[in-house]
């Protein structure tokens, strides 16, 4: 229990550091918010001054941070510098789209990867195992934008099977989710297969057999449980990678997520939007790794005994 509290405290600390970094990085970036809205050559100095005042840019930097955090904690991310809408309203929809897409891909990758890995391991050397090895190598060596174009060309354009662009219905989710899931699915399948094969040869399986425990029970209760440790650690790492790729794949499929928004906001130096998005991404990653660590502890009693905080 104390570990859980410690781990959550650790997550909060990381979020604090992340907020410092996003805050600082955006303030340090060349070109101030004011100069990107107003052309300093043609704007009277008092107008610039008024803008600075309004944005709190004249305050000492630490106070700017405190104000920023106080607002963020109340769910107030400020207003966009361009269309003057609250950042929260602006990004809420996009964030939801991104999370839905990333989550769908994650579920596909693990929901199909773990069983595929287990079945391949239990029938190693068989046809299923060989097909899996072949398909996973293919998926892992094809960059996902190429895979995206292939799927769009075949399923979308040639067969007119699935919508290739936009987010007008649930069917629009299928192609981008498949493209996103291909790589993590392959990795999950392979890691699961390797872990299960390793556990199948472990000494304890022989001991259990020597006590008359059935092969089926050993495989599904003991081997699977022991093989779970590397799979769970992979899962929490993959959420981060997946989020990064989601932002790219969104652009290819015109999925209205945070990807294009983040790029736009950074290019326009729309501080409030960019820093809110960056902080949101950091939050998702920190939650994923916290949940991953807690799960790992639940799965493996050896980790439970070791009270050290694992990041």
């Amino acid at each position, binding site marked *: 229990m104390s570990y859980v509290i410690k781990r959550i405290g650790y997550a909060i600390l990381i979020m604090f550091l992340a907020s410092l970094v996003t805050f600082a990085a955006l303030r340090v970036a060349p070109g101030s918010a004011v100069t990107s809205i107003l052309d300093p050559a043609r704007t009277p100095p008092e107008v610039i001054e008024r803008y600075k005042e309004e944005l709190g840019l004249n305050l000492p930097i630490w106070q700017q941070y405190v104000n920023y955090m106080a607002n963020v904690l109340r769910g107030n991310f400020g207003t966009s510098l361009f269309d003057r809408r609250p950042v929260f309203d602006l990004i809420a929809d996009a964030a939801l789209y991104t999370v839905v897409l990333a989550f769908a891909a994650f579920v596909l990758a693990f929901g199909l990867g773990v069983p595929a890995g287990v079945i391949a391991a239990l029938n190693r050397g068989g046809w299923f195992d060989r097909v899996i090895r072949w398909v996973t190598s293919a998926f892992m060596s094809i960059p996902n934008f190429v895979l995206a174009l292939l799927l769009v060309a075949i399923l979308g354009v040639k067969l007119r099977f699935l919508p290739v662009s936009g987010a007008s219905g649930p069917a629009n989710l299928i192609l981008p989710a498949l493209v996103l899931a291909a790589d993590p699915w392959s990795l999950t399948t392979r890691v699961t297969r390797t872990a299960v094969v390793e556990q199948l040869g*472990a*000494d*304890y399986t*022989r*001991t*259990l*057999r*020597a*006590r*008359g*425990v*059935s*092969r089926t*029970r050993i495989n599904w209760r*003991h081997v699977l*449980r*022991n093989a779970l440790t590397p799979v769970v650690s992979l899962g929490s790492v993959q959420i981060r990678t997946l989020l990064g790729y989601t932002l790219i794949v969104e652009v290819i499929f015109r999925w209205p997520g945070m990807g294009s928004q983040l790029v736009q906001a950074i290019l326009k130096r729309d501080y409030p939007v960019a820093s809110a998005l960056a902080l949101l991404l950091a939050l998702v990653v920190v939650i994923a790794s916290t949940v991953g660590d807690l799960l790992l502890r639940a*799965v*493996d*009693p*050896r980790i439970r*005994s070791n009270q050290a905080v694992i990041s």
Partner: protein
Amino acid sequence: MSAPVIEFKNFSLGRDIGTSWEPLVTDMTLQLQPGEILGLVGESGSGKSLSALSCLGLLPAKVRPLGGQLNILGRDSSTFGDEEWREVRGAQVSMIFQDPMTSLDPCFTVGSQIVEAIRAHEDTSAKEAQGRALEMLRLVGITDPEQRFGAFPHELSGGLRQRAMIAAALVMKPTVLVADEPTTALDVTTQAAIIEQVVQLQQQLGMTVLWISHDLGVVANLADRVAVMYAGELVEVADTKRLFADPQHPYTMGLINSARVRSAGEPFDFISGSVPEPSTWPEGCRFAPRCSRPTSVCQEHPAMTQPDSGGSLRCFHPGMAVVS
């Protein structure tokens, strides 16, 4: 004498090497009498562990019985299917292994693994099985069974882990316990305690024990009879006292000499060379190349004989080698 609980009759084992079968154990004839402790001794690669695993049908992939017969509690084991073997394991013939750390599943508590051993054979309630597991933990000399029951393997010392292993192996009160070097991975004081525990349990439960070891010292303290294996075959079987007092096979003599406590400055006495790989076994006596006094007759392969002194022996020149 009552019927043997385990009986090898000209039993042989081989490994599938694609085009043919490479022999690993040949012409093994050995009876395990009810209630005895039989030590099976030999260097690694002699085939002792494979012979032991045969008694539970747990041979590694590609290794199969090639000939002869292996009877378990009077039944011919070659007729056993998967389910029959499963029913034998743990309930009639049980086994403990060398490394108690890797031989227990690290993700489950010690207690749950003992309960599982019971419920593999009986439809008992979880509560009753737990009671029996606790009783067994106490019986193997664990002083606070209630606490140890819920412990994970990594939370216990090597000695306690091995005791828990023994508890799981014996909870179904099997007729035969096969012990494959169960004390090798433990330190010396723990070793002695575990050996004593097994002997005590053997008497309490009336078990028969097949104790496999490369350590003659351990076997001398424990076994009623000793069987010595070399390069896939038995070379000498005799009562423990007789074997140590008057070894007949030069290999047995060599083993005893190399295990002997020597005084300071006295040179180590060992058998030069090493156990040959199955593919390089000589046509004749397999020990001849390492023997101190081979003769031309040793070009032939010696058969197992029953000398007047008792036991059995595979040597043309019994007792001939000179003990230095």
